[in-house]
């Protein structure tokens, strides 16, 4: 049951082979047993989850169910869940019980899914390894000495360790794709504007997107169908015709042109990762795809531009945390100014403070043009690179990460080393394109390797098609870490 697809679980529920209450209890038991050494979850509320499961069971009995009714889903702790602690992995929100549901959570509730718990994450989504959380790092279930990737490390770990059949994540510079890659699971970041950000705590508003993490592309399609769609409460939500993201899953791949960006296969890519990617690409060629070399010449500017834009937006978004209306408030202060300064100094961790300082600097008087505007121009150059590439191919493929999971603590001393992990994922956020990662093998120390697929705007169905066909022909996505059996 822990390895079942969402479709299989849905069928088992509707034929009464298992009840939602039993299914939910199964995952709760696994979490109690395995979470202490993984730290994938920050908040659990078994009573509440089981209550939701019973409601789902009643709905199934009435014949009123949908594909996700009764399915337990873990939510990254960045999504507001009404009545549940919503911490964003930060001391600043360690006492914040959300008074409302995020749009994404509302959609899952309407579908009858069960909230399994809130997953651990890098603080305010700032990080690539899930080591900056106030609640401690998450371990990689394939090797507990390694990081799971971040910032959605808890969600990716939970799915990989079979603690949850599906989870939500967010991706601003790679935070769904990178942990999916490092944990050997499938994750998708939609085109910017496809999933509403209402109730999804903001880090960098022009880059943030919520998306699903699961064991397969078919599962991702089901989840994306629930998550996507216009929401008037998010001013950047796009009004488009609703789509069935699973409609193209079974289309043959013959004739599809796959672009391989030469900059993604250059120095910096680990040899073990390169080998697994090459094998995956050969597999796709064998399935009828045509391989095309493309170029994204401004790739080297993506990380620097991102580390101007994202911190700038973060410095603005995190200005709201002042101890006045919600969240942590320092106890030692004299006047209002001190209340702000001490609350923020004590409430935020080191990485968050670092990015707030960078952002404040690049937006300050005299520096805005040279830094922020320049980064916005680079952003357009990067988007143009992708547009040009998509004239010559239908989809871009390559590595998600330059390496497999590294050791916990290995990159903590030098922020820049950590930032360079995002080299293949960041451009996708800058351009607002959809991106996915699926498992395609193993590298050094038996740690998973992820294949990244990048589509043109609104090409999620096509990306899911390629991923699904790849997963029909291979079994990397069915592997499970040994210690979690």
């Amino acid at each position, binding site marked *: 049951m822990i390895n079942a697809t969402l479709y299989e679980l849905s069928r088992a529920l509707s034929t009464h082979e298992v009840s939602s209450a039993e299914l939910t209890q199964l995952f709760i038991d696994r979490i109690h047993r395995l979470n202490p050494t993984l730290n994938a979850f920050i908040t659990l509320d078994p009573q509440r989850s089981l209550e939701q499961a019973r409601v789902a069971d009643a709905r199934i009995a009435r014949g009123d169910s949908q594909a996700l009714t009764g399915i337990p889903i873990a939510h990254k702790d960045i999504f507001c869940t009404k009545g549940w602690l919503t911490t964003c992995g930060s001391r600043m929100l360690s006492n914040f019980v959300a008074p409302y549901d995020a749009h994404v959570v509302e959609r899952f509730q309407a579908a009858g899914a069960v909230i399994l718990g809130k997953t651990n994450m890098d603080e305010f989504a700032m990080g690539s390894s899930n080591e900056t959380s106030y609640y401690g790092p998450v371990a990689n279930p394939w090797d507990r000495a390694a990081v799971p990737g971040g910032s959605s490390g808890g969600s990716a770990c939970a799915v990989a360790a079979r603690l949850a059949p599906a989870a939500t994540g967010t991706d601003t510079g790679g935070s769904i794709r990178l942990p999916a890659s490092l944990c050997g699971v499938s994750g998708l970041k939609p085109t910017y*504007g496809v999933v509403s950000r209402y109730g999804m705590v903001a880090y960098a508003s022009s880059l943030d997107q919520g998306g699903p993490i699961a064991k397969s592309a078919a599962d991702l399609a089901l989840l994306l169908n629930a998550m996507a769609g216009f929401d008037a409460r998010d001013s950047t939500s796009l009004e488009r015709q609703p789509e069935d993201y699973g409609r193209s899953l079974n289309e043959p791949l013959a004739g599809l042109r796959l672009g391989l960006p030469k900059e993604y296969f250059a120095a910096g890519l680990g040899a073990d990762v390169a080998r697994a990617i090459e094998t995956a690409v050969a597999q796709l060629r064998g399935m009828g795809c045509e391989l095309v070399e493309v170029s994204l010449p401004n790739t080297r500017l993506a990380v620097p531009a991102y580390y101007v834009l994202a911190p700038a937006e973060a410095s603005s978004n995190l200005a709201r945390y002042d101890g*006045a*209306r919600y969240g942590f408030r320092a106890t030692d202060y004299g006047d*209002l100014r001190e209340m*702000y300064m001490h609350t923020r100094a004590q409430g935020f961790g080191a990485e968050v403070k670092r990015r707030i*300082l960078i952002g404040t600097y690049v937006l*300050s008087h005299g520096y805005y043009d040279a830094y922020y505007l320049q980064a916005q121009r680079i*952003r357009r150059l990067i988007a143009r690179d992708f547009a040009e590439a998509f004239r010559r191919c239908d989809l871009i493929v390559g590595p998600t990460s330059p390496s497999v999971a590294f050791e916990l603590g290995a990159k903590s001393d030098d922020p820049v080393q950590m930032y360079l992990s995002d080299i293949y994922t960041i451009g996708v956020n800058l351009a607002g394109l959809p991106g996915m990662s699926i498992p395609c093998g193993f590298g050094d120390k038996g740690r998973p390797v992820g294949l990244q697929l990048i589509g043109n705007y609104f090409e999620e169905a096509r990306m899911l098609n390629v991923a699904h066909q790849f997963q029909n022909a291979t079994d990397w996505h069915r592997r499970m870490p040994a210690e979690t059996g």
Partner: protein
Amino acid sequence: MALSLDDVKRIAVLARLSITEAEARQALVELSGVFSLIEQMRAADTTDVEPMSHAQDVVLRLRPDIVSEPDQHELFQSVAPQVEAGLYLVPKVIE
């Protein structure tokens, strides 16, 4: 553009983050590293390139100027550190 210790302290004040002398020195080292990374993009030639803030060419939606949200201030203020008579309590600003 080399960062100085005074820059760090000035930015910390702007960001309303109190910072000790030792923390400021540590931040200077780390931020200098990040700014070396950022310098790479400063050198790029972006003549005649328009800044891009959004992937899609969208316009901010407007709505009628009517009351559409219910009053939930009690619920929203239930999570506040200090509230009285619907007001958030903070240290006095004006003497």
